[in-house]
């Protein structure tokens, strides 16, 4: 029997992997991918809890999140392309102008 806890643990693991990806990878596109992983970890939690409670709220919210994620991916990739044109690199550590 697969219980709610299994889903939550899987979701937690996915979220941690995503977070680690955001902080550790040195490629902006991979960072964006990692963010997608984090979002989907959350989606999984919503769906699992919705199923557990017998409501559809979790699924509805998941649709919203997917929409937002699609928009985010579009804007994020556009930004990455613009940045690359500017600096010829995708290493996030190269972009340090955001201060003072």
């Amino acid at each position, binding site marked *: 029997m697969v219980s709610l806890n299994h889903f939550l643990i899987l979701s937690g693991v996915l979220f941690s992997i995503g977070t680690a990806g955001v*902080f550790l990878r040195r490629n902006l596109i991979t960072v964006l991918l990692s963010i997608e992983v984090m979002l989907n970890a959350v989606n999984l939690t919503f769906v699992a809890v919705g199923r557990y409670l017998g409501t559809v709220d979790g699924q509805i919210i998941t649709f919203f999140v997917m929409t937002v994620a699609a928009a985010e991916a579009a804007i994020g990739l556009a930004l990455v392309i613009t940045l690359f044109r500017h600096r010829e690199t995708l290493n*996030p*550590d190269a972009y340090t102008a*955001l*201060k*003072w």
Partner: protein
Amino acid sequence: MVTGTIDEMLLLIPLLPLLGFGINAFFGRRLPKAVSGGIACLAILGSFAVSAAAVWSLVAGSAGAFEQTVFTWMTSGDLDVGFTLRLDHLSALMVLVVTGIGSLIHIYSTGYMSEEVDSEYARYFSYLNLFAAFMLVLVLGANFPVMFVGWEGVGLCSYLLIGFWFKKRSAADAGKKAFIVNRIGDFGFILGMLLIFTTFGTLEFQAVAAAAAARAPEAAMGVMTIATLLLFLGATGKSAQIPLYVWLPDAMEGPTPVSALIHAATMVTAGVYMIGRNAVLFEHAPITLAVVAGVGVATALMAGTIGLVQNDIKRVLAYSTVSQLGYMFLAMGVGAYAAGIFHLYTHAFFKALLFLGSGAVIHALAGEQDLRNMGGLKKHLPITYWTFLIGALAIAGVPGLAGFFSKDEILFKTFISGTPGHLLMWGLGVTTSLLTATYMFRLVFLTFHGERRHDAPAPAHPEEEEAAAHAQAIDAPVGPGGAVPPPSAPHAHHAPAVRQAHADEDHGHGHGHGGHGTPHEAPWSMAIPLIVLAIGSIFAGYIGVPHALGGSNRIETFLEPAFEAHASPAGETSAAAPPPMARVLLASQAHDVQPGADTHAADDHHADTRTELMLMALSSGIALAGIGLAAYFWLRNRAAAGALAARFRPVHQMLLGKYYVDEAYDAAFVQPLKALSAGGLWKGVDAGVIDSGVNGVGLAVSGSSGLLRRMQTGSLRTYALSLFLGVVAILGYYLFL
């Protein structure tokens, strides 16, 4: 108290000069001289007319005083002060002196200041009117705060008028000195006023007198003694007594009519008047009275000795004023209030006369003030000479003239008073009167007799030229009257007449030898006040002919009610504050005069008459001796004076240096204060504490921001991490705590 009309008229007395001030201050620079001078004279003359009418109905009517409350000024808790004017016998006399002599001096000024440019002329007259308004408020005030308004106001006007030629450095400095020294006294006055309020719960003169009369006189230091001593400190400032007299001689930097009006006839008597106003209070503080008498006689003697050797005609008169004020305080101190006020009144005539006369001399000699450059003016200035001579005779105390009656009254009252050391004081007073006669006639002989001399060392020209150049270069300062001298006005910082000399002669010689031409007699606008004052100096004394000479001493009877407490029950008053004559008897023969012993009192009265006649003969003799002494040294045998000065060179130098009091004050107060201000307050507190505090805050902020900005790395990853940690922390807080 009585008819409504008179009560409402009181306000007009100070209001008219105030109006004149307003017109001249705001529109004066556009008015021609005749108009601005005319307005000022009309204002003060109108005030004189109203005063005379009010005093007339006061004397004719049965009311003891008129009172007018213009508005309620301050109400707070127990304090209820109205802007109240009160005309009683004492203030009546003062009002007449202020407006009467003030009018004459206004008229005189139209001639004396006629060489000023229009705007300066209007500024001068606006100040003069403002002064009269404040002085009248001072005199008419029915309570301490109203008097204080006038008290401060005349101080301000004194400052403005001493520094009238403010482009001249010494005049500006003298103005500041007068103001600052007066402030020291004013501080005492304020403290005394507050102490009186906390003690008696009122600031009305009448109520304070009644409350004080209900108390027993203080044998030791008590609250009344302290309050009166503080008030007396105020009086020493305003009336130029030791220790605060130093400003008055310097005040001679102002125009001469100002010296006559403010620094001789009226303002400087404010302290004497204030003590007279609070006679009942002072009467209950014998220690203060002794101090007043001691300070008065010491000042009289000291100023008299200084006056003996000074070479500036106005300074001699200034020290003479200080000396005569000392006499008035002596009278106040021995409880002879009427005699003190009487001397104030006669002194106003002859001192104003002497100052205006010296002004005419200075005017005639184109700004020359040094006695060593005068002489032989008798034939050129007959009117000035004769009026000046009358003034000098009056102040010297020659029998028959005003000063004789009042000065003898003071000396007599001192002689028979019960104040400790009264015989010593009397002796010093008599010595001073010898000095008075001597230095006054030294002045007369040196100025008017003999031949014209040019003995004075040449003044330091380079410095003065520099100052003149400077004055012309800046040429922009705007006086409070809104006066901007046009660039063409040459040397606006000099005495008016000097300007002509400057225009005629080479720059560098204008001042020292300005009067080579024939001295010219004063114009009529100046001569008439001289003549009127001379007549006053002869006859003013006859309102106070003492009993001993067959008179009835009307002035004393007239003034007496003002020195007693009225509001208290009659029995209490007479027990606590006997009228001056009775008290004097009680004091001098306390051991054998019993209540009800009328025969004793009558005998004593005869004895007093004999004493008084003897004293009179003595002081008349002394006055004549003083004149004779002056005649010997400065008319007959001038070499003897020089020989004497050479023989007692240290003494002469000390007197010439005015006992070095200015230098002592400078060393004792001014320099330490300067050092404290520069080293302590400026470099220590201001630069050290305040500035470094402000700068320190700035440095701390910029330093800590230098540290904080290191958090802003610009690295995306760091920002994301801090965001993440923040979310974790917040969630963790809500979930687990």
